[in-house]
């Protein structure tokens, strides 16, 4: 599935079917919207595009020829790098499309007054997706650790090197924390150093 136009048609057809069958009559649909695909393009041997439906707007990534996503757990999140920054995609599966990955932009869709309104928002996303972004503008949620990390069962997702770029100028109130650590606040601290508490021993 490496031709973006074929992929777009396939996605369009699959969502039309879901809309008229499984989604028929449910309250959460925005009746002013219909299914529309746009911006389908090749990206790193895969195809990426955007789909608007009455219940969601999402970026959708289809597997390339070398990808085997069939073993991936449904609902798991995978980070993907774009020039504008990292976005987390969720492993998804649709009848007529198969396993793919989606990045939810809006759901439910009730804030949109018309198809054109939704289209304008979609175009805005597509216009900025491939533009080199300011790393400090990256959404912090891209780094949100899963529950297992909070329980201390995993550390892989806690990469402090990444966090250091989110708010590099965040002031540390001197009254609240006049620690030796405060003087190093502009320096990237390695996770290893943090876990060893080295910042507390210096100074």
């Amino acid at each position, binding site marked *: 599935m490496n031709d973006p136009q074929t992929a777009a048609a396939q996605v369009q057809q699959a969502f039309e079917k*879901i809309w008229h069958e499984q989604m028929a009559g449910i309250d959460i649909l925005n009746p002013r919207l219909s299914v529309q695909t746009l911006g389908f393009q090749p990206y790193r041997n895969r195809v990426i595009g955007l789909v608007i439906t009455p219940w969601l707007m999402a970026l959708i990534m289809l597997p390339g020829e070398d990808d085997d996503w069939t073993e991936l757990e449904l609902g798991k999140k995978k980070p993907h790098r774009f020039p504008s920054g990292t976005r987390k995609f969720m492993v*998804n599966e649709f009848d007529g499309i198969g396993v793919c990955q989606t990045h939810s932009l809006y759901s439910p869709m009730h804030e949109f007054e018309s198809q054109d309104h939704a289209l304008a928002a979609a175009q805005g996303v597509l216009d900025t997706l491939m533009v080199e972004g300011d790393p400090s503008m990256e959404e912090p949620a891209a780094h949100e650790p899963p*529950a297992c990390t*909070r329980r*201390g069962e995993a*550390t892989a997702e806690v990469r402090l090197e990444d966090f250091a770029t989110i708010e590099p100028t965040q002031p540390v109130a001197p*009254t609240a*924390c006049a620690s030796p*650590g405060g003087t190093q606040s502009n320096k990237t601290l390695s996770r290893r150093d943090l876990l060893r508490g080295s910042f507390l021993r210096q100074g």
Partner: protein
Amino acid sequence: MAENEFDFSGLEKRLSVSRRTFLKFCAGVAASLGLPGHAAMAMAAAVADPKKRPPVIWLHGQECTGPTEALLRSEQPSLEHLILDLISLDYHQTLDSGAGHQVEEIKKKSMQENKGKYLLVIEGAIPVKDDGIYCKIAGETMLDLTHEAAEHAAAIVAYGSCASWGGVQAASPNPTGAQGAPQVLKGKTVVTIPGCPPNPANFIGTVLYFVTYGKLPPIDEYGRPKWAYGRLVHENCYRRPHFDAGRFATEFGDEGHRKGWCLYKLGCKGPETYNNCPSLEYNNVGGNVWPIGVGHPCFGCSEQGVGFEKPMFSLSRVLTHAPPNMFPEIESREDVSGMSTTAAALTGAAVGAVVGATAMAAKKLNEKEGDQD
């Protein structure tokens, strides 16, 4: 600040956690708050320095003590150790070892001595009907006690749905005129941590932020910290692929329910409830233990106008993508609510059992409602 004040052996002893676990926890909290790496460092340092503990006055109004219970049962590092070590808990009716007028005196003394410096935590709703006589502590109404404590507080946190907007007490017909702290303390900034019970991680994150930076984190128009309540439960739900593709469970125990499909048609309020349950789950239990994780629709416990207001298994109706600022005030909804007193009471009872809710509970509630139609 002397070097030896950061002696980790003392910290390890005080918190009963290893240095590694503690710092990892700080890193996790900082990451959840969307803060950079040095925030974790600053938090660790702030906690390691016990002299900066802010005094805390903790009031209980109309409630079940669920938020405190939830806080005490969280683990790794033992959050109750952390919170008790982090703050100077000068008054807390559930945890104080003293009792009676002596404790009340200590509270008044602490509030006097720490004027403008203490953190006020309010747990439970505040009844205002008939001058607040429906909830009294040591002969004074919760209404008066709240105003008194709020006057010189450095910051006010409403912990739990009851304190945030009235919770189950404010459900129609609201016989005691129960309100949340933000409604009672008009004109003051009140940070709300709603939930029934609220996730202690959202409380501890907020307190850690306060202790570290000396100010409260950014909040939305409902006073909720944006880092915790910025997204719909639906947005990050692990069942989202099934919603996207239109795969719904339609009955408890049916094929879709057993396969873990989307619970929208069973009444899930995820599309109108702002909370971080999908990423934090609940109280470090692990194993995907939170309502949706165990197969029960989201009840909307943390969303004003949803939890205790909309029938538990009715379909979520979403009027706008940003429902919180569109909902009418609870008070003006009392008479239009489709929820009967019995249903409200049943729902209240069901919330406590929400994790263990079964098809039977659903069936019973439906029967009850059916009877009244």
